[in-house]
């Protein structure tokens, strides 16, 4: 549902949201903010009964990283839900991307938590990526104060 993109490789980005008990969060709103290499793209979807929602979008390009470097391709995510007093910000990176090692934001994240920010390719279909949002627990997703 991320509309109006211009360039970039088309991908399907699938989110699954779970709470501290591992229960599916079935009425969250996932907002996606990214670049398609040319302009900003925005999309928004509710999670369904299975705790998931799926965006048709493009794989984002690298963007400037502040002090001359580059940020690895990533999607900014805003999560809203009944039961959350504030919305949460996180980022989706793509597993296996060679630019991850130089990313200045991942560098701010403790090493043992970086994997929570990675989307992984779905085994059954090329171009489909899976991203788990865990609100709490051992593999709690990293959230940012932007």
């Amino acid at each position, binding site marked *: 549902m991320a509309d*109006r993109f211009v360039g970039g490789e088309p991908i399907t980005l699938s989110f699954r949201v779970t*709470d*501290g*008990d591992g*229960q599916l*969060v*079935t*009425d969250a709103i996932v*907002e996606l*903010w*990214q*670049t398609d290499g040319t*302009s*900003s*793209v*925005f999309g928004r979807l509710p999670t369904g009964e299975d705790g998931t929602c799926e965006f048709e979008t493009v794989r984002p390009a690298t*963007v400037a*990283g*502040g*002090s001359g470097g580059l*940020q690895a391709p990533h999607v*900014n995510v*805003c999560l*809203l*839900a*009944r*039961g*959350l*007093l*504030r*919305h*949460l*910000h996180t980022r989706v990176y793509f597993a296996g991307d060679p630019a991850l090692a130089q990313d*200045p*934001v991942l560098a*701010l*994240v403790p090493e043992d*938590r970086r994997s929570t920010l990675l989307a992984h390719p779905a085994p059954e279909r090329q171009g489909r990526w899976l991203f788990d949002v865990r*609100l*709490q627990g051992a593999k*709690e*997703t*990293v*959230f*940012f*104060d*932007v």
Partner: protein
Amino acid sequence: MKDRSAMAGSQPPLLYPPYRSTTRWAPSKPLIRLPETLSELDAPVYGWWPLGEADNDLTRQSSDEPQGQRIIVAGRVLDEAARPVASALIELWQANAAGRYCHAKDDHPAPLDPHFAGAGRTITDAEGRYEFITIKPGAYPWRNHDNAWRPAHIHFSLFGSSFRTRLVTQMYFPDDPLFDYDPILQSVHDERARRRPP
């Protein structure tokens, strides 16, 4: 649309145990602060979805008028220096006069109003002003604690110029006797912030 780090006490904490779901939903680890230089991404250059003519008049979105007390909800969007924020997208959603949302997940047995969808949106003008026409929503029960009723409220969502200025909040009506029993309102610790006049 202030940065929340500059507003200690006037923004709710993520974890507020009287609001029960936050104990399972609030992240337990501290947020990681992103430097501004790494979190700039502008709002879409093509703008938002085009607005319809009745988007800011929730009483004119159906073939007939909704039930309830018709009201105007108006105000301004200001930044941290009290400067008007122009061209901000504001969305609102609310229950109908009987306290029922037009939403599949709302199982409160109050009647749905076939002429009230309860959602609107508008864009602020050059002085940051906005205006909606709607009906006053009813209070509704929820399962947070015994005899829990939410005070009448309208949900607001604001988009500024980037995702850093995203804001989601609720608007209440003056002097509601339910205020003291509402953990969502009480989660804002600063009494002045709760009562901040427009």
